[in-house]
């Protein structure tokens, strides 16, 4: 008999508790497949958030620490400094990372902690039944923006990748989505790449995964996928906002020290990176960032 489909080893046998059609399950699977394929499960230490994925340690077979709301990057920092050779990753929702945990994510990224963040952006607080998140789109109805998010009342959504791409230290920042086979494949490639960069000790990596919350969006799973495609991607363009893998490798090889942010080479590259990222952040798309990146790499 030929096995055509198999659960990744890095996932336990426990069935997911997520709502039908929720893409948290898909993203768990991608993380687990990446760990499997890179042979990293035994070296991995995850940090679980406060949010619907609070108990992802029921599903991940690797060691996991559960963190207080928003504090996962600080917890991961503590772990990584004790075990610099292990693969430490945080898995965080948009309320966890972009609201209460903003300070922790910005500073972990700014320090160039050699950890990986899987950032699950579903534009809402899922676990607490659908309140407005910093990432909630303009006009989006939530239980705390019942007539839709209004800029004069609630301000504007926060684009985390673009914001972190203004920092010098991060080595790899990419936004992907979980709503189609093509996007899911791309998401897996990105997560794998982030882990590879961490394994090489190069610096901070974050992959933002646009995700759905059918339950609190009040849509069917299929409508949710469509809504993500048509609305979220407009506000949160997919693509690479930072990739300094090559520079970081070069400066590591030259013994220039920890992370990309510390080497003289990285510093020289930083100005270009920041301006390219700023262009991307203005909605011109990640292509601009990638072009700027390539120009500097070349």
């Amino acid at each position, binding site marked *: 008999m030929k096995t055509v489909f198999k659960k990744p080893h890095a996932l336990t046998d426990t069935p997911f508790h997520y709502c039908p059609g929720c893409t948290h399950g898909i993203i768990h699977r991608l993380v687990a497949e990446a760990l499997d394929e890179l042979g990293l*499960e*035994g*070296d*991995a*230490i995850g*940090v*679980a958030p406060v949010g619907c994925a*609070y*108990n992802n*340690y029921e599903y*991940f*077979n*690797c*060691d*996991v*620490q*559960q*963190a*207080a709301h928003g*504090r996962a990057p*600080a*917890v*991961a*920092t*503590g*772990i*990584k*400094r*004790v*075990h610099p050779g*292990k*693969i430490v990753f945080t898995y965080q929702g948009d309320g966890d990372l972009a609201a209460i945990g903003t*300070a*922790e994510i*910005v*500073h972990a990224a700014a*320090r160039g902690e050699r950890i990986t963040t899987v950032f699950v952006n579903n534009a809402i607080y899922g676990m607490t039944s659908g309140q407005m998140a910093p990432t909630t789109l303009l006009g989006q109805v939530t239980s705390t923006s019942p007539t839709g998010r209004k800029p004069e009342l609630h301000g504007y959504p926060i684009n985390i990748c673009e914001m972190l791409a203004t920092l010098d230290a991060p080595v790899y920042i990419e936004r992907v989505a979980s709503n189609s086979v093509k996007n899911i494949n791309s998401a897996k490639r990105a997560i794998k790449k982030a882990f590879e960069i961490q394994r090489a000790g190069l610096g901070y990596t974050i992959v933002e995964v646009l995700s759905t919350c059918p339950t609190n969006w009040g849509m069917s799973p299929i409508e949710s996928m469509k809504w993500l495609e048509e609305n979220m991607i407009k506000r949160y363009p997919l693509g690479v906002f930072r990739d300094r893998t090559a520079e970081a490798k070069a400066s590591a090889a030259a013994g220039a020290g920890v992370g990309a942010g510390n080497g003289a080479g990285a510093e020289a590259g930083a100005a270009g990176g920041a301006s390219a990222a700023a262009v991307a952040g203005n909605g011109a798309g990640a292509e601009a960032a990638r072009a700027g990146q390539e120009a500097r790499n070349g």
Partner: protein
Amino acid sequence: MAERLLMKGNEVIAEAAIRAGCRHYFGYPITPQTEIAHYMAKKMPEIGGTFIQAESEVAAINMVYGAAGAGARAMTSSSSPGISLKQEGLSYMACAELPAVIVNIMRCGPGLGGIMAAQADYFQAVKGGGHGDYHLVVLAPNSVQELYELTVEAFNIADRYRVVAMILGDGMLGQMMEAVQFKDSEDIRKCDKGWATTGTGLERPHNVITSIDTVPERLEAVNNRLQARYRDIAANETRVEAINCEGADIIITAFGTVSRIIKNVIADAEKEGVRVGLIRPITLWPFPSQAIRDYSAGAKAVLSVELNAGQMVEDVMIALAGAKPVYFLGRTGGMAPTQLEIVGKIKDILGRAS
């Protein structure tokens, strides 16, 4: 024999932590404890350790959470306002059963208050501080030598019971220079940490550090386990110093810095024909209730002297359960009672009691 050095209190705490095997320190600057961070920033890189100046006290305590959960001896230090910010993390650590050491070099509050010595964080330290049913082990040194010994002991107790141990000092103690003698490393007792997240290596089931359990029966079992451990700690780790208590007319209870003044009060009162005893709790939690009952059995009254508006006095009253009249003398805002003030209060009380 070990060397004898003249050192500042805060630096001794840092040196003691390093000697106790702590290689991971996370902190955020605040007076009057900053010398701890300065010392760590200089020493840790020299010995392959980690010093991180975190973005906030909130982040610092969560870095301690991560490092402790990863199996390391980890520590943070701060002063009153910063300790308030760490309470969330401390509550999580209590439930996740993570051992670590936290230092509070108290200043006076409430609010931003002032940087002078005070003991107004007693309640916060011994009654939990954060949410939920938990305790820190709270050690209250009153000399630089004790800062060293109790810091080492704090790491031992933390590891042995998987709890957070707090060193509760104040600005006076932290800034004071005194002779200190470091002992040998037999003081250091390390424990096996098979529960830590170190990576499974695909050789064992995964380890999970968590403080959440949504099943009431299971969460009650967690609470019962914590409470049983707290009872063990109370039975094994309660520390107290008693001076001059036999035949004393009055017993003074005092901890930390202010207890040093009482030693002079004993001499002053002696000259006036009054015998004063001192009971100095060294562990504030577990509180030495039995010792307070025993040592004050023959006295007419008990007086609690504190640098706050009356906090430990409540635990003294609970310990005595009405067996003795209990009085209080305290100053706040960075002020300390003078010997004269305390002797006056004693005469006043004994006048009333006789």
